[in-house]
Structures are given as structure tokens and as C-alpha cells.
């Protein structure tokens, strides 16, 4: 059976050759196998293209800049990436006509931190074995682990194995891994805590924030030309968390600004150097939106009205917050 990367290379090669696209965005090799970097390839560079369990990065945001350029680009998008892509198209950030979307199969992506958490150190390289198994070569000897045990948070709660935007698909036809866990379980657990417990939980997490802005800069929904937090003229600019308030402020406002637009792609949590579970903020908004205004999946299409740019006359009142969940 053909591996996905072979299908991708074959299709990409053809599209480059027949002039449908003039470049491809995907991932190229890193230093230790687990660290590929998003990259753009021209015809003739495809041998450097790779796709495997470590290509977790969502390349859709790069299309904002790429579609400002001449020509058409082939974008390799995993199912979850296509949601981000749709949202970017909806918000006129990406020119759909300049992208050829190749929807690529995804069996879940590995989190190198979780491999390290298994006690595996000094990783020199990794091999993917059949049966979703990883063989890790380390300076301390070889180790193995199951892909399923080291999945990225976003993959544990995979929202779809189906591409919501694509011009063509690269699928092996192999059976897909089992259904993911409930993505709102942790949010619900937090909701049931007392406010003081919740406060302590978030202090514990957000106090680690170093305001590196990785979460924001990687986020496909955070596509502002200039973020309010970087804009001295906005009156709320802040470069560092000079006070704990600013840790809260930054993350509340960031989550609010992407509320209704966040597809739950999980990039924020993936890139956070401090392992702050930022997705729990976004998922809170998603859960509330689903409960208050009906199920809504940002990026499921390119035309629907987002929940914060919409209303119904009989929406719930803000006082509903007083009546929900946990003790006060």
C-alpha cells in the first residue's frame, strides 16, 4: 500500500508539472526527525517534502502571506487544518482562488513533549513502524512507544477526519484510529469546581506565561495586521506581564477575540513553551456558544455567520452565568 507521503508527492508533482500550482506548502526535515519545519517547495524541491506523525503544525495561516504572492500554491492540509483554512477564506484573509487544497490523511500527530514525559531522553531520531508505533533512537538506547499514547492534545480530541475544504484528497484508505475523547470534558470539570479552585487552577497555569506571543502568532484566527497588545495607540498595549492582571488580560482578550472564530485547531497549546493548556480557554467559549446559541463549528463552511456577529431576539441573558455550574 502506498504511504500518504508518496501519494502527496505524486499528486504534488503532477500539479507542479502541469502548471496548476507553482509551489507547495508543507513540511521539511528537521534535525531530529521530530522537528520538521513548515516550508514552501518549488518544482524540483519535492524530495525535501515530508509528511508523518510529527507534522502537527497547521500551515493554513501561512497562506495569508502566500496568497498575496503571484501564482497558485498547493496547500497540504490535514482535516483540522481545513477548518482554519475555511475560516480564513470566510474572513477574506486568504484568497481561495490562489490555493489548491490537497486534503491529506491524518492519523493523529505526536507530541514530542509527551514522548519525553515517558522518560525518553536524548532522542536522536525516530522511526514510524506499522501499527502506529514509534521507534525512538536515543543516546541512551532505543525505545518504543505507541502513537496513541503520545498524541497532541488537539488530536486526542480530533474534531474530524474529514476535510471541509479540498480540491483533491490524498488518502491511503486505511482504517482510521478510533473515535476521540470528549473535548469538553476538562472544561466541564473546571466548571464544576468552586470559583476559588478555578482561580487557583488558572493562576497556576497562566502565571507561567512569558508573553512570548507564540500562541497568538501561530493562531490562524489571530490574523490581525497589528495586535491590540502590540499597538501602542490602542491604549492596551503590553509587552510583558508586568502584573498578574496582564496575564489574565492577555489570555481573556485573546480568547474573546477569537471566540466564534476559533476552530479549536489546538496550535496555541501545541506551541506554548510553558505548556499552558490554552485550548481550555477557547473550548470554554466554544462550549458556551454551543450551549447558548446552538452547535457551531467555526470553519465548517465559508459563509455562515459567526455566533458573535449574529443574534436572535430570544438569546439567553448574561444572568445565565449566575445560574450555571459549580458552587459560588
Amino acid at each position, binding site marked *: 500500500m502506498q504511504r500518504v507521503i508518496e501519494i502527496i508527492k505524486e499528486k504534488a508533482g503532477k500539479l507542479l508539472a502541469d502548471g496548476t500550482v507553482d509551489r507547495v506548502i508543507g513540511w521539511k526535515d528537521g534535525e531530529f526527525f521530530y522537528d520538521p*519545519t*513548515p516550508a514552501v517547495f518549488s518544482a524540483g524541491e519535492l524530495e525535501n517534502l515530508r509528511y508523518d506523525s510529527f507534522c502537527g503544525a497547521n500551515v493554513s495561516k501561512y497562506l495569508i502571506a502566500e496568497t498575496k504572492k503571484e501564482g497558485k500554491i498547493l496547500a497540504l492540509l490535514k482535516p483540522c487544518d481545513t477548518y482554519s483554512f475555511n475560516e480564513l477564506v470566510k474572513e477574506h484573509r486568504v484568497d481561495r482562488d490562489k490555493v489548491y487544497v490537497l486534503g491529506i490523511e491524518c492519523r493523529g500527530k505526536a507530541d514530542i513533549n509527551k514522548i519525553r514525559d515517558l522518560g525518553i*531522553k536524548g532522542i536522536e531520531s525516530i522511526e514510524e513502524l506499522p501499527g502506529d508505533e514509534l521507534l525512538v533512537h536515543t543516546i541512551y538506547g532505543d525505545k518504543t512507544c505507541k502513537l496513541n499514547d503520545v498524541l497532541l492534545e488537539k488530536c486526542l480530541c480530533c474534531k474530524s477526519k474529514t476535510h471541509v475544504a479540498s480540491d483533491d484528497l490524498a488518502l491511503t484508505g486505511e482504517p482510521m484510529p478510533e473515535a476521540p475523547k470528549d473535548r469538553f470534558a476538562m472544561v466541564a470539570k473546571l466548571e464544576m469546581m468552586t470559583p476559588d479552585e478555578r482561580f487557583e487552577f488558572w493562576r497556576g*497555569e497562566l502565571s*507561567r506565561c512569558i508573553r*512570548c506571543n*507564540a500562541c497568538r502568532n*501561530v493562531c490562524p484566527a489571530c490574523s490581525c495586521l497589528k495586535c491590540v497588545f*502590540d499597538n501602542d495607540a490602542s491604549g492596551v498595549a503590553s509587552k510583558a506581564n*508586568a502584573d498578574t492582571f496582564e496575564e489574565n488580560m492577555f489570555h481573556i482578550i485573546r480568547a474573546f477575540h477569537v471566540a466564534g472564530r476559533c476552530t479549536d485547531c489546538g496550535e496555541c497549546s501545541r506551541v506554548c513553551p510553558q505548556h499552558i493548556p490554552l485550548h481550555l480557554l477557547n473550548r470554554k467559549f466554544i462550549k458556551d456558544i454551543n450551549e447558548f446559541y446552538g452547535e457551531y463549528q467555526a470553519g465548517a463552511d465559508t459563509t455562515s455567520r459567526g455566533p458573535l456577529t449574529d443574534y436572535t431576539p430570544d438569546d439567553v441573558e448574561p444572568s445565565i452565568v449566575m445560574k450555571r455550574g459549580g458552587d459560588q
Partner: protein
Amino acid sequence: MYQIEKARLGELFARIAASGELILPVENNGTSQYGTWTPEVEVRLDRLNTVRSAKDCFFPQTENLMGFQMKGKEISIIDQRKPCEPFTVFGVRACDAASFGILDRVFLSEPVDTYYQSRRLAGTIVTLACGEPEETCFCSVFGIDAVKPGGDVSCWLTEDTLFWKSLTEKGDALTEKVKDLLTDGDEAALKAYQEKISAIHEKLPLKNLSLEGFNGDATEALFDRPEWAELSEACIGCGTCTFVCPTCQCYDIRDFDTGHGIQRFRCWDSCMYSDFTKMAGGNPRLTQKERFRQRFMHKLVYYPANNDGIYSCVGCGRCVAKCPISMNIVKVIKTLGVKNHE
């Protein structure tokens, strides 16, 4: 040279903490962070690196410089400097320990940064040799010996024993305070341990990284290299690499209007940020390529040019592990260096 049973480390920490704040790597939701020791914290000496480096102890991410108090139309200046109380940082790895020398060259040369200086004078550094280095480590490339980590006191932690060796006067003073807890060190055992871990260090995949082609004179050769475009292509312009870096020393000075006064503070800045060194006339580095180049040129060319050929990288590997898109100084060195094309 002294030693103490690993099981008695708690006593050692309590003793050190009795004479001033003790800062050491502690557990924080699955990460290690430098934090103040208390009997309650979970000390993590097993993890190699903290997320943030020990730089924070001397050059914190934010620091108040002065205040301006406003009363009606009157403005008065408040000096917020306070004498820095003595403190000890324990568990500093060789790379971080080496970074202080790099920071000192910036902050302690004229004009001296008194905020930094007062912390440096008050702080005693106890280092810890790296028994289980990671694949991302490449300190040896910069001449750092993680087996002999330096600092005021160097420590080695085996399965059951902590070896303690004072290297400076500050180290002697600290040793004096804890001496009754220590016993004379077993030199042979330490040597055996050092040899054992040296062997591991020899196996590190990046140990042969060559810096040839990078030096204070390389500006012309490197500045216009076309590879910068591809190297920086995926950079998302966040500050992760700069903020986890033990040697990055750039900061911004900002004013916070408290409503009845101004709090002037400094905070780390990142050359990866689009508003870095933005001036009235605009921004000298307009695209991410230029900003990305700045960071690595500074570490590998500009800093050596001004500092006797010393690179401002210590090979701690934090940026290698933390970059959201896995682009890092190793890849830059390998791409642009002379000898790294296998």
C-alpha cells in the same frame, strides 16, 4: 570538596534558605521553573533544563525602574531601587552558568546597569553537572564543560550523593554556612561519576557542530547570504527563542500609567518582534527575514565582534526544543557554517 547524601538535600536546602532566598528548579504543572524553595515545593533536579533560564534571577522579565507620582500638576520621582538581599541559585546548569559571563559583559561594562549589578553581587550560584544531557545540548561547541559546570559552587548529583565543591569566595561563604551538614567528599567517586557522564556527553549528536565561518569578522560574508530567506520563511515572529534564551539581554523601557502616577519599568524585548528597536523614524528591520537574521547575527557575529570573539550562545538547547516551528540556531549554523554540510 564535600558531599552529602541525596536523601538529606532537604536539610541542605533548608539551611541555605535560612540565610536568604534559595531559588532552584521546582515542579510546575509538568514543567520545571526556577522558584523559591519552601519545604512544600517539589524540587526537580532530574529534569535537565528549566523552561526559563537562570538569567531570570539576575535579569527578570519585568523590573520596575522608577515611579513618577502625580498630584495635581505636580510630578515627583520615586526611586524604587531597594538593596538586594543575598540569595542563592541552586541547580544552575553549566550553560546557564556560562550565560552570566555573557550578560555581565553587557550589563556590567560602563555604564553599569545597577539593577543587574546589585542582583549579581547578592547572588551565589550553585551549579549542577548534567548527568543526563539531551540531544538538544551543544554547550561543548562553545567550550563549556557540562561535567565541570562552574559557578560559585559546583555540584554533582549521583544516584545517592551530592558532591559539593566551592570555587569562589562567595562559594566558600555559602559552604561555611552548610558545612556541618557536609562531609568530606570522595574524590574518586566524583571522578568516576564525571567520567561516566563525560562518556554520555561524547555521544551527543550536536557535539561536532562547527562554528567555522562565524566570528566577529563574518558580517560581510554572512549578512547577504540568500539562505536567510529560506531559514526565516516559517518564522512566526514570536519571542519564544529570545525569552527562553539565557543570553538574550535586550529589553524595552515602558511606562505604565497607574492613573495617579507612572510606573516606569523595563521588560524583555525580542528582536523577533516587529516593533523591536522601533524609533520615531520607523523600524530598521522591516521584515521577519531581517529580524530573524538579526538574532543569529547578533549571537554569532556582532557579539563576538565586540566581546573578544565570545559567542552569545551557550548551547543550552532551549530554543531548539521550544521553537513552535522548529527553526533554530543549530539549523542556522548548519546551513550557513562552513563545515556542517555532511
